[in-house]
């Protein structure tokens, strides 16, 4: 496969919570047009315009239904560029990058725009129905375990306790407070048609005072699924309902796009980074949010890099227990994981999470002048992914 590089990136501010705000005041079509136009005016696009746009949405219904990518291109007057919508659940944004990489690496395209868009505040994921969500036979598989059930179960499997989770979350929340003072950022504001700002910086989740400490997993749901978990884990008698609002990521809206291309041909085309490995796999545990370790190991093996060569690590933080289990099983120095904050700080833009965290990783590598970064991601279907990038900026 030919080497694949990242040439440009753009992320919009994250807005946590489901009650919505800025992202509800703009049509997805307009939001995408705006960002497409911003990117198209920049240097790299002008030299090698992308021939395809791969957008991961995960909830292809409502205004994101059918093929929102191609619709947005037409809306932006870019009828010469193809577009496709991709659903790989929470890995959509990351896997869009993976698809782009495959097409460029195989020599099919010179440049591809890829990323993810998440609009949870206005588009209810429950609208996206199918056998996956509806069929009674799908409900009894481990992948049908409710996410927080799986997170509590995995915390038990990794012998994590509530104090450990709280400590992790507290530490995580202490980061990212200096993000606004960062001297480098791919962050772009969202404007309305008048040029007025809708949102120009991340809006962090409000710390909920009341529900803290209460288990997120209702007792009745726990009891309902426990016998099924015992069919998978024979040593399991009980596990504590360990996650609370303070140790779970808030949902968020956001958009992250990356412009990928092949080997640089002219001096003008200086890539930001090179993708050293990308892996998407189905976890051996076959549980929601399992498998980040497996994906990270596989990506390391594919890249030929050793664990020690990775300067910065980032991982999905849907729940503190999931991230802490990753940190423990990869034996990572906590100071090198999610250095400028992760989903527990900013919220979690499900379908955009991969592209969003990847852009944040590029920022961190550049700020700290480091070489290699590894990002691992998981989703509620049991899939996981990992990507390794080399900073060239």
């Amino acid at each position, binding site marked *: 496969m030919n080497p694949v590089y990242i040439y440009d990136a753009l992320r919009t501010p994250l807005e946590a919570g489901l009650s919505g705000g800025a992202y509800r005041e703009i049509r997805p079509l307009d939001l995408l047009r705006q960002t497409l136009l911003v990117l198209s005016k920049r240097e790299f696009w002008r030299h090698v315009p992308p021939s395809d746009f791969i957008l991961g949405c995960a909830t292809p219904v409502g205004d994101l239904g059918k093929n929102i990518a191609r619709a947005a291109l037409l809306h932006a007057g870019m009828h010469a560029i193809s577009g496709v919508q991709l659903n790989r659940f929470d890995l959509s944004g990351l896997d869009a990058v993976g698809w782009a990489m495959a097409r460029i690496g195989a020599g099919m395209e010179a440049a591809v725009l890829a990323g993810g868009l998440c609009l949870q505040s206005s588009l209810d994921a429950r609208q996206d129905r199918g056998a996956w969500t509806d069929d*009674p036979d799908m409900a009894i598989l481990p992948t049908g375990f409710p996410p927080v059930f799986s997170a509590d179960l995995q915390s038990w499997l990794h012998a994590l306790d509530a104090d450990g989770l709280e400590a992790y979350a507290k530490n995580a929340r202490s980061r990212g407070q200096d993000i606004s003072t960062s001297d480098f950022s791919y962050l772009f504001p969202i404007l309305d048609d008048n040029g007025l700002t809708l949102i120009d910086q991340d809006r962090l989740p409000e710390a909920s005072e009341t529900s803290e400490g209460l288990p997120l997993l209702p007792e009745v749901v726990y009891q309902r*699924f426990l016998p099924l978990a015992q069919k998978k884990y024979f040593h399991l*008698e009980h596990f504590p309902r360990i996650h609370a609002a303070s140790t779970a990521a808030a949902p968020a809206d956001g958009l992250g796009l990356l412009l990928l291309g092949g080997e640089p041909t002219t001096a003008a085309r200086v890539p930001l980074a090179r993708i050293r490995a990308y892996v998407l796999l189905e976890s051996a545990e076959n549980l929601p949010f399992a498998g980040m370790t497996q994906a990270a190991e596989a990506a390391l093996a594919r890249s030929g890099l050793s664990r020690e060569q990775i300067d910065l690590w980032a991982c999905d933080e849907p729940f503190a227990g999931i991230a802490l289990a990753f940190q423990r099983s990869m034996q990572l120095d906590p100071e090198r994981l999610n250095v400028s904050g992760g989903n527990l700080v900013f919220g979690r833009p499900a379908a955009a999470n991969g592209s969003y965290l990847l852009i944040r990783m590029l920022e961190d590598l550049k700020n700290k002048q480091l070489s290699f970064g590894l990002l691992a991601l998981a989703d509620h279907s049991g899939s996981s992914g990992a990507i390794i990038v080399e900073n060239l900026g």
Partner: protein
Amino acid sequence: MIKYHKDTHNIVTLTLDMSGRPDNVINHEIGNAFMPVVSHLKAEKAKGLLKGVIITSAKGTFLSGGDLDYLYQRSDAAGIFSFSEQLKFVLREIERPGVPVVAAINGSALGIGFELALACHYRIVLDKPSIVLGLPESGMGLIPGSGGTVRLMWQLGIRQAYQVLTSDVGYTPREALKAGLVDALAPGQKAMLEMAKAWLLEQGEARRFWDRPGSSIPGGDATHPENIEFLRERSVAVAAEKADYFSAAQAIILMLYEGSKVDFDTACRIESRYYARLLVSQPTQNMIKAFWLDRKAIERGDTRPKGFGKFRPRRIGIIGAGRMGSGIALSCLLNGMSVVIKDVSKLIAANALVYVQGKLADLEEKGRIDAQESKALLNRIQITDHVRDFEHCDIVVEAVFENYALKHKVTREAEAFLDEYSLFGSNSISIPISTLAEACQRPENYVGLHFFPPVEEVPLVEIVKGRQSSDESVARAFDFVRSMQKIPIIVKDVWGFYAARVQNTFILEGITMLQEGLSPAMVENLGRQSGMPRAALELADELGLEIVLRYEQLAAAHYGVRYIQHPAVHTLNKMLTEWNRPGKSAKAGFYTYQGDEGKTLWQHAYAGEIRMDLAVEPQEIFERLLFVQVIEAFWCLQEGVIRTAAEANLGSIYGWGFPACKGGVIQFVQDYGIQNFLSRCAHFEALHGPRFKPPRMLTNLEG
């Protein structure tokens, strides 16, 4: 077989009256009987000579379900599919042409019998609590096969239909009206026919709403979020509580999910496919064997000692107003008997009255009985503190504490007031009946009557034949148990009789696994997943470890030098003496108990360490846990502890919850294949010792 009568209003009454049998049965030959009538009706309708049809029966029942003898041991899915389609065709021919049809239900209608009623446009039923209606197929691992799932779904909506389809108990007419299964109740036969005629005269063309364009299922189809949530929740619950096989409940869930999203006739064909899939499956065949063939064999008296006249007990004496005595009293009352219940004081005896009152109130609530009946039943129970009130009793059942001296005392007292024909039954669990009988005046009239708690729910009673119990007494005990509508199994007077003795092997095997280093949670999880309703350690705690050990000691005494000590005895001894954990009663056994319900497994390394890394093949564990029971049951057969396969099978399912999908302990071997079973025994014997050596009776089966 179908009587045809037409009146001056052009209303035809079809009276089902099958010759040569006490009831009407709808079966694979029904098409032959019904189709000529249906085509005649069609011709009449074309000539304008038909206003409507009433279907009723000349028998005590309306129509009995199915033809399970015909369906047993069928393995051709194609044949079953077309059988189901043929039945559906007949019912569709009644439902669809537009002639209004009323089912005048004069007696019980279950299964296919009730499906015929569902295919009519209007259902009137006699208001008699003895009438039972419903679709109990799921209890036998089946679903209705004549469109019943589809009609119920259209009539009641997905969630209500699920409740009816998975309920294996029937509905009384009033319950059926409340549940929307019938349209009207009639006070008597004549009134019912008049109501039917009146309804018919008001009708023009009759079409069920599902046969009209644009109609939809009440409450929506399976794309409605609430229905999806419901079906998925049920799916999880069903998967959580059963062993891994395709069950009737699962088929019903999928049928409602798929069938609600297509048209009526397509849904019917989907039903036929699930019907065929279930019917040819081994678990369903095993359940038909147990709940139909084995049950029928016992109910018709195959196992009852021959040559004694039928005993019709009317007045029952009960000693002990505890949980067992009260339960026995309730079961007797509900089956038409009168009860005298005695305890040391009237105040204590009155506990039984309170218990019975509570249960009757529940039944009233459910519409099973009315206030008047409830009162009449309460009038038939007498509480007393003196044995002289037993004077006119046909049988006295003793249900006092498990204490030899006490049982002996109450027996002697009661006997003084009984005549020489009166039967005496002792609800002993572990004291030998022969020993108890030794001290009584008429040991030949003395038998064990081992009820299982809760008495009103468990349909099984062990009749223990002591050394001196006469065959006549056993026959009379048999009739007594049958008159309570329970299943009697006749067992020999050995330790634990039959049920507890075999169940104990399951418990001991679980304890043995602890010693091998399996984690307690694993023993319990795999125990439940093997299909047993309760796990081994949980059961041990509830029985009390002393009892578990005592059964084994009694076995040792029984076999003498031939006894080989069970490996679990080691741990039992340690639990009882060294670790002081005798079971639930002491709040410490294999579990530690907090409060009423809370319990957690005692984290103890029984084998020095818990080997979490132990490579365990679940199937291997399931089989070990089931095999020990099967082998012990064969020992029981060989030693005459139990005498027939039918009793052994039903005893195992009802007595201690051996998986019904296996058809019981004896059918298990048929299901597994005798060759395979014996070679698997050899494998287990090599690994785990001589308790897996099959008794001669099993090896003989091979030839």
